[in-house]
């Protein structure tokens, strides 16, 4: 497969993630969409790394996978804490702060 195929796939994954963040109302689904966004960037990095013939991109991708894992853990922690207080993680009901 050529580089453009990978870039196209990563652009599609990115678009799905961005669409999901805008339309989904459940906290868990939004976390999944954020993972999609981060992983589309990882795919980009690895594809470019193979195309450019140096390993920097793969190292960057490993860093970002580790960071994405930590980020997901924090996201779930916030959702659990929110569920204990409010009994919901539906974003439509989380609207105390507004102008």
């Amino acid at each position, binding site marked *: 497969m050529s580089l453009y195929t990978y870039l196209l796939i990563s652009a599609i994954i990115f678009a799905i993630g961005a669409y999901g963040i805008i339309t989904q109302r459940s906290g868990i689904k939004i976390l999944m969409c954020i993972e999609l966004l981060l992983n589309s*960037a990882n795919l980009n990095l690895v594809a470019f790394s193979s195309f*450019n013939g140096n390993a920097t991109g793969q190292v960057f991708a490993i860093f970002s996978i580790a960071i994405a894992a930590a980020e997901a853990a924090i996201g779930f922690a916030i959702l659990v804490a929110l569920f204990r207080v409010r009994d919901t993680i539906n974003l439509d009901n989380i609207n105390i702060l507004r102008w």
Partner: protein
Amino acid sequence: MSYGLLAPEIILTIVGLVIILLGLLITDKSKNMIGYFGAAGLVVALGYVLKTMTAEGSFFYNALVIDPLSQIFKLIFLIVSLMVVIASISYFKDNRNQDEYYALILLSTVGMMVVASANDLVALFVGFELASMSTYVLAGFEKKNPASLEAALKYFIIGSLSSALMLFGMSLVYGVTGSTNIPVIIEFFKTNPMMATNSLDIIAMIFLVAGFGFKMALVPFHMWAPDTYEGSPSVVSSLLAAGSKKMGFVAAFRVLVLALVAIRIDIQMTFAILAVITMTYGNIVAISQRSIKRMLAYSSIAQAGYISLAFVVMTQMSVAGGVLLALGHALMKGGAFIAVALVGYMVLSDNRNAKNLDDIGNFAGLGKRAPITAFSLLVFFLALAGIPPSAGFIGKFVLFYSITIEAVAQASNWLLLVVIIAILNSALSIYYYARVIRYMYVLPPNGEKIKEPTPYVVAILLAVIGTIGIGIYPEPFIQMAMNAASVLGV
């Protein structure tokens, strides 16, 4: 090779980790001393940064650099974090989780400092995430308070979206240039000017501007800021507005000014429009707010608009003005949020179940109830509006002056117009600051005079001294900012 110049980061990391360990070993009652330990670590790191203001060095295969730009931003982060830690000694007194709180503050400061010295996109991203993830948790630290958790959730969603955008942009930059090291990227664009007009570059730049724009809270990436600043504990809002926002600016200075200096597509016009919309929107919406924290949030959006004027002309003087205004804003806004925390403490001591602690009605007669807080807020508000002699005035003066020079040199009418809009905006902002000042000094108090807790007073006075000090004696700070700007070679 010696890692001496990285001592501030190393000290803060060790102190942060020791605090976590200490929290497991000591009783809940003796946790109140942990704040002093954290403050001591920050003072040592601050002293070290002050001693090495003009040092130069590079570490880890050129991934981190020490130069005047990194040092002045480290100074900002350390001062803000010191103020926040001192104020928190009172704010989180007798909280049994306070060890984790101080550890997170110190680690987020380390993250911001790594971003300030980052010379490589990988280091930049890791530092950015370390600071962001610590602050997500800090924003939701009052875990029984639904507003705090909601603030944390909103901040988390928008923050991770912005890091994903940033990472995507970085992956494209890496794809075009084959390197993540910022000087190598610049060298690549200089030797291959053909590649600089590649459409991938333009997409990459849009993603990077969006990613940093979320952190800097520029319109249209600002939606999270008012909610998060209002819902978080006041001391954490202070860290977010004064520290973590400046992290976005230093990252933008490093990446946009340096790496995209070669592309130079209408970045000038883009930032001029963003800056004008941001400052006007922030100031107009701030007028109608009753919650002081929310008003301060909108005013900090407006201030971000002023600072991002530095990206418009990108001369040495305008970058210096941006750095000065960032320094001044960190002191003023950090101090103002801590003063709001003190007012919240005052309201709670009247009535334990009070809601809306930062409502403007609670500021009535503050000049009689808490004279030091009221006077400090007066100083911060006048400085934010840009009235001399204050840090806010010096920063705005240098910045607007540099743009006027550039407008005259380029004989460009629209640049002049941008400056005029910025000055009119400063005038507009006086309206909502003056309203709070009227509440504090003209309206009658609705309670007795209180004794202001010492930690709060120390933190606020630190900010007041900095704000007025820079206003009265600006030369060394202007010199520092000019040195910092010269690093960028613009």
